[in-house]
């Protein structure tokens, strides 16, 4: 069987709620192994909520989410992680009572082929330098690096990344693009929420555009050229 | 209220440290008196209500207030813990209702805070000191240390006892005050130990006494010093380790096994309550009986009239022996100096005291203060 055609995530008719408010109104999307797919949309369109819904971190969900062949609707969040899903939240979630290194080592290894600590420090030298300081004492950008590094180490092979370029210096953003391409080549599957379209466009295979909790458009990398107008109208550029 | 209908409220400690001494048992004893009296006075049934003072003056005061102001209660009995009794008598004195004090010890109710509406029954701190302390000082125990319950009763007991000690050539080498309901007396015991006294006096009551005695034993105080429990009720004696407490002398207003009369009443009480009576239980019965007799004789429930009637007739029953109800509200009667039996000497679990001597009321209690004579 062709590995690159294995379905890693399939979402059917997903609805999600925070308390009383209905945020996602029937999302359908699929990710194949080795794909890098972005979720685009304006602020508040429900992109982060989609990622959280996959992790079972929203108030209430309905519909179907299949990860690596298992139905995750009845699963608790920690079980989902062990299917090989790594989540990098938009607020970064660095633990202040843990040192940088403790933060890095915190997530349990969910698969054996994660990046080694050496590789990670090589990629983000800032972290090596500050590894004994308290997690939240890092600068905004350093925290962002740590948040990403953390899940790379755990060996997750389905990455849910929420605005990872936020607050990073342009050089680092460029480096991150290279990293993501590398990860993709290793066969990891990536669902990326991004504002920075210039960052996402060259590396993504497909784009989903969200608005008001719906997926309103699906655009393959190859169609990008011809659909620029449409996209701009959705994103308000 | 003078409505010709007698309603007695028993305000006691239903669940606290003194519950065994004057709690539900005081209600039982009062009810026995009412039943023995015939259940009716002035042709109307006698009513009885009761409440838990929780040993808190404010709660007791509020209940008493409600009883006399809006529930037509004539007389409040029970009344254990001087703090509670003090607060309740404030109310009853003002409202002109009779308080039948059967559990409290402070002598203040017939001295500083005396009032024409108070009947102080069972015993008081003076009687305790005159019994136990005087005897021990006489035996040559000159140096005393006090572990005192930190409220009106403890303070009064300490003061009165100290006076007795000094008057008889003894000396008080120190004292320490422990809050009511202290469970760990170890640090007080250490202070007592360091004082070099001959006798450590426990100017407290109820479980405080039991706990203090336990700590004293645990820390080896009993090896070098004597302990005097100044106020020990029969329930407390039963709760103490007989090997430790055996031989200790104490003063009491009543012992169930004194004579046929006491035994007969106590047997009836035990059938109803499951325990032998404490002096407070017997006092509650005696006081209620005397009160009801006076109402009957006076033909009214007017407090002033009834009180006058109570003071003109001498109380006389199994409890009130050689008794007199004085103008200041003090009921003077014979007290007993007893010694706690060692476990080996006891026939059964209720056989706890050896009666050493009967202290005539006139010796046990202080004379009446002139300004407190309300008998006119």
């Amino acid at each position, binding site marked *: 069987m062709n590995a690159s055609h294995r379905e890693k995530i399939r979402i059917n008719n997903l609805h999600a709620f925070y308390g009383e408010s209905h945020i996602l109104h029937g999302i359908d999307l699929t990710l194949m192994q080795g794909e890098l797919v972005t979720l685009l949309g304006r602020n508040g369109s429900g992109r982060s909520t989609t990622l959280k819904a996959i992790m079972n971190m929203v108030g209430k969900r309905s519909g179907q989410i299949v990860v690596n062949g298992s139905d995750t609707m009845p699963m608790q969040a920690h079980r989902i992680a062990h299917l090989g899903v790594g989540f990098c939240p938009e607020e970064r979630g660095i633990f202040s009572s843990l040192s940088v290194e403790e933060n890095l080592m915190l997530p349990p290894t969910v698969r054996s082929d994660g990046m080694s600590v050496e590789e990670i420090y090589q990629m983000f030298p800032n972290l090596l330098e500050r590894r004994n300081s308290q997690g939240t004492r890092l600068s905004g950008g350093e925290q962002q690096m740590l948040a990403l590094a953390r899940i790379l180490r755990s060996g997750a092979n389905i990455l849910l990344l929420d605005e990872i370029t936020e607050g990073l210096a342009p050089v680092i953003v460029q480096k991150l693009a290279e990293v993501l391409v590398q990860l993709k080549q290793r066969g990891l599957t990536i669902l990326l929420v991004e504002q920075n379209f210039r960052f996402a466009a060259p590396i993504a295979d497909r784009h989903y555009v969200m608005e008001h909790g719906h997926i309103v458009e699906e655009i393959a990398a190859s169609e990008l050229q011809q659909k620029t107008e449409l996209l701009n109208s959705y994103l308000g550029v | 209220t003078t409505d010709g209908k007698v309603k007695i409220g028993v305000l006691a400690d239903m669940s606290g440290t003194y519950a065994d001494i004057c709690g539900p048992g005081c209600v039982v004893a009062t009810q026995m008196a009412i039943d023995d009296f015939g259940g009716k006075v002035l042709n109307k049934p006698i009513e009885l209500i009761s*409440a838990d003072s929780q040993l808190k003056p404010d709660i007791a005061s509020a209940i008493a207030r409600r009883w006399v102001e809006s529930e037509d209660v004539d007389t409040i009995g029970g009344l254990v813990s001087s703090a509670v009794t003090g607060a309740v008598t404030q109310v009853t004195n003002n409202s002109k209702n009779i308080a039948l004090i059967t559990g409290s010890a402070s002598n203040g109710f017939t001295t500083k805070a005396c009032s024409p509406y108070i009947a102080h029954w069972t015993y008081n701190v003076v009687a305790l000191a005159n019994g136990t302390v005087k005897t021990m000082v006489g035996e040559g125990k000159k140096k005393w240390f006090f572990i005192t319950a930190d409220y009106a009763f403890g303070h009064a007991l300490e003061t009165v006892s100290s006076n007795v000690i000094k008057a008889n050539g003894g000396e008080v080498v120190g004292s320490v005050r422990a809050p009511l309901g202290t469970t760990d007396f170890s640090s007080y015991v250490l202070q007592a130990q360091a004082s070099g006294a001959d006798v450590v006096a426990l100017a407290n009551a109820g479980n405080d006494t039991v706990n203090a005695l336990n700590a004293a034993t645990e820390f080896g105080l009993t090896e070098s010093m004597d302990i005097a429990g100044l106020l020990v009720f029969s329930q407390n004696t039963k709760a103490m380790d007989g090997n430790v407490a055996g031989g200790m002398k104490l003063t009491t207003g009543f012992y169930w096994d004194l004579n046929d009369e006491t035994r007969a009443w106590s047997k009836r009480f035990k059938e109803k309550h499951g325990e032998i009576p404490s002096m407070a239980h017997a006092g509650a019965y005696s006081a209620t009986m005397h009160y009801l007799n006076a109402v009957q004789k006076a033909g009214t429930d007017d407090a002033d009239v009834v009180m006058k009637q109570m003071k003109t007739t001498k109380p006389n029953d199994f409890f009130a022996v050689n008794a007199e109800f004085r103008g200041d509200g003090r009921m003077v009667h014979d007290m007993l100096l007893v010694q706690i039996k060692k476990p080996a000497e006891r026939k059964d679990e209720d056989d706890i005291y050896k009666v050493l001597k009967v202290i005539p009321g006139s010796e046990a209690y202080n004379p009446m203060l002139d300004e407190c004579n309300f008998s006119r």
Partner: protein
Amino acid sequence: MINRKLLIALLAIGLLAPLAVYPVFLAKLLCFALFAAAFNLLLGFVGILSFGHAAFLGTGGYVTGWLMLNSGLTPELAIIAGTLAGALLGAVYGKLAVKREGIYFAMVTLALAQLTFFIYLQAPFTGGEDGMQGIPRRALFGLIDLSNNTVMYYLVLAIFCFGFWLINRTIHSPFGQVLKAIRENEPRAISLGYDVEKYKWLAFVISAALAALAGGTKSLVFELASLTDVHWHMSGEVILMTLVGGVGTLFGPLAGAALVVTMQNYLSGGELGNYLHIIMGAVFVICVLSFRSGIVGQLQKFKRNNF
């Protein structure tokens, strides 16, 4: 704003109530309602939970009581002095406590109140476990004799109305606006140049003063001040009243106090006395689990949804 009709109706009930109900009970109820309203000013409108409000209630009671016993002051002056004493204590404790937030604030106030408790337990003037007994009511302004319970009740009613008005005014004042802002977003209020600690502190002092006002009044009603009023159970009770009635609502504390005081009164006399704590505890648990907006909060919700 407050519903005028409701207010008039309540006032009418307040004025007529002693015809039907034992006035001392009513007076007690109003004292606790004022106490709870003072507490609610902090919890409901500043968003801080004081677990030591008994300290102020007790201080008001003791100071007022001591002055009535030991000086020739008329009751209104003694009550004012008690209120000031509460405010002063509130100023000191507030200074220490407002540095901390949330649960920390609760713990610090609790511990400070316990400190106060032990001081009052030891201090000779309070009468320790015996309480301060036989506080005379004397005559208001030297003219109106308060020994009659009904007269006393009307004084309490007047004091309660004043306290209630002051709280309502505070909430709807420029100061109240800032408090609201602080509750909404504290760091932002700081960055706008508001010295947040000072505002919280002032609210704390006002609340402490009103609690002491309730305590001073109560000591006159019962002619007694005791450790119960300073004990931490009392701090818990006032939370219960507020919670049951509705945190952050104007009338919640009144409703809560009415319910709790009635319940206590009903239970403490009779056979059910033993169950008092069990029932109170259960009410607490139920409120927290499924009734967080309290009686008044629920009524408001009901009204919003149905009218």
